[in-house]
């Protein structure tokens, strides 16, 4: 099996969708001729033509608004927003139009569109380019928010997202684009949305993460397991909204301890939601309060101090140990 980066895996998924489903259309700023600023759509226009893959003007609200119309018409639009932070300009079209049209029409309308956007720290781009935006959209009823943690996951989840009957915001962590390679099947496969994955089983604590920080969390868990002789279950949420509550609750009911890690800031975040679910459904199993390791409630940190402020292995190790204390 070939070893691919996440950029290659996503490119491959898009190519397969274009090949197998005439309804799929891909567009955004620099997406067509240039192949995208991160080259995720590289070669697609050449291969499939300008009717399938094309460039748009710099007009985020217009891009998503047009995608909504295309989806209502029966196409499967896959729109790229160049950086997730720029989606703020299209917030209304995403959160109040794409996400709500099914409900508002009493089920008459389907809006099967996918919005892809890069985000995330560790690559020294400043705020708005690095911002985690998932919590904004998690709060918009009617849209699914998916964040893959690597090449294999990205391909399977993207296939599922494009064929999903509902709108999906597909957030791609920039640091994952090229920093790791994985074996990825060349053929089409899907990973179901709204299902978390137990990345490694364990008995003493449940560590919950997603995106790039899944890997840091995994490394921290392994360090603590090795040094302290404990066993830690690690869960990749994959779809951060709607949450796969069952997987989280079943795990915490078994381990009695939990830690949630993400790059987004703290207040009203995915971690806050996960902890609320644990409190509602597994409180009596808890041996310690559930902690969260996140960015602070500030704009995304300046490049020079990014590495110390974004949750890193040492901080996660510390939080794991505190939660593991008797």
């Amino acid at each position: 099996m070939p070893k691919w980066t996440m950029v290659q895996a996503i490119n491959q998924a898009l190519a397969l969708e274009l090949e197998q489903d005439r309804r799929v259309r891909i567009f955004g700023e620099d997406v067509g001729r240039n192949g995208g600023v991160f080259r995720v759509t590289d070669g697609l226009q050449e291969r499939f033509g300008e009717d399938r893959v094309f460039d748009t003007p710099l007009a985020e609200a217009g891009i998503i608004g047009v995608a909504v119309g295309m989806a209502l018409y029966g196409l499967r639009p896959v729109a790229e927003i160049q950086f997730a932070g720029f989606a703020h300009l299209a917030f209304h079209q995403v959160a109040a139009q794409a996400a709500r049209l099914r409900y508002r029409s009493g089920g008459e309308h389907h809006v099967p569109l996918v919005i892809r956007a890069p985000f995330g720290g560790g690559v020294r781009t400043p705020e708005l380019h690095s911002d985690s935006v998932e919590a904004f959209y998690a709060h918009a009823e009617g849209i699914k928010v998916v964040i893959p943690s690597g090449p294999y996951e990205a391909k399977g989840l993207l296939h599922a997202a494009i064929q999903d009957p509902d709108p999906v915001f597909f957030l791609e962590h920039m640091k994952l684009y090229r920093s790791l390679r994985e074996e990825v099947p060349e053929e089409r496969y899907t990973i179901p949305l709204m299902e978390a994955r137990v990345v490694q089983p364990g008995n003493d604590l449940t560590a919950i993460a997603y995106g790039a920080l899944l890997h840091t969390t995994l490394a921290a868990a392994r360090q603590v397991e090795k040094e302290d002789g404990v066993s830690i279950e690690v869960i990749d949420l994959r779809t951060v909204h709607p949450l796969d509550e069952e997987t989280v609750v079943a795990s915490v009911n078994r381990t009695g301890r939990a830690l949630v890690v993400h790059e987004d800031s703290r207040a009203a975040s995915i971690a806050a939601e996960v902890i609320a679910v644990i409190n509602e459904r597994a409180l009596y199993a808890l041996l310690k309060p559930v902690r969260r390791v996140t960015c602070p409630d500030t704009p995304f940190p300046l490049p020079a101090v990014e590495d110390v402020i974004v949750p890193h292995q040492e901080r996660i190790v510390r939080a794991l140990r505190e939660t593991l204390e008797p």
Partner: protein
Amino acid sequence: MSASISPQILPSEAETRLEVQPLPLDRLQQMYRTMFLIRRVEESLLQAAEEGKIGGAMHTAIGMEANAVGAAHATRPDDYVTCTYRGHHHALARGMDPGQAIAEVMGRATGFAKGKGGSMHFVDPEHGLMGANGVVAAQVPHAAGMALAAQLRGEDRVALTFFGDGALYQGVMHETFNMAAKWKLPIVFYLENNRYSEMTPIWRTSSVEALYRFPRAYGIESMQIDGNDVEVVYTAVAQAVERARAGEGPTFIEALTYRLAGHMAGDLETYRTEEEKALQRQHEPLMVLRNKLLERGARPEELEAIQAQVEEEVQAAVAFAEESPWPDIAQAYTDVFYL
């Protein structure tokens, strides 16, 4: 002050002089029937609102009916339309069942959206009405997306989007103008210019005086027409639709019109005078069409008969709505996602 921004000027003063071919008498009578139906449905709704039978915001298009009916007749049933929260007239003009329409406004389970859409969100895909929208200008890019989809699939559908004068100042409007012009989309932009945005006359807020010239900056063909004359509306939309279907790109129609009722049910209308309304009533669409029909040989009894028929239909529709059940509480939880 130009007609675009002055409510003291009648729609008949519109600047673009179109060559209007008279429509056959039976067609005009059909149009009269629909316009009268819209008028009576909306008057009944206002009455019901006054009696406390309708909650929330309800906007009527009383005085603006010709825009909807002329446009509906000039498009095919499978063309796609989006419009604003002031959209009862468009839905009825395209053929929505009045009972379902009224039931929806009254929040009943038998409404077209099971009571989830309400007055501001009329939708009827079967008749090509792809959605009215509660947010000013939000529906405009949706129509462009439908036009783009038709173009990409090589189908000859046209998209027609209605919006008010206030929508012109929204950013997404201009994002859409640019895309529509650049991609030569088969779309018709239709401005129902009633010279007011809510309670503010447009002259207080607009930097431009002749609104139809605005999109010319994008290379979009445009005209300013009398939106209260259904034949003029029909002619303008037919021309625009023909251009769109021929692959010649978008057209912008500024239709001068006037809203005779308040912005919404319960509007105190402190912002305009009785004199102004009396002036505008001299050129309101039902009267314009009625005079036209009589001039061309229709007999008053014929029109009376149409009206009596409509009256009965509307009463039945109101009764249907009022007797309809309320939606089940479970409806609050469905249609969020597909499952």
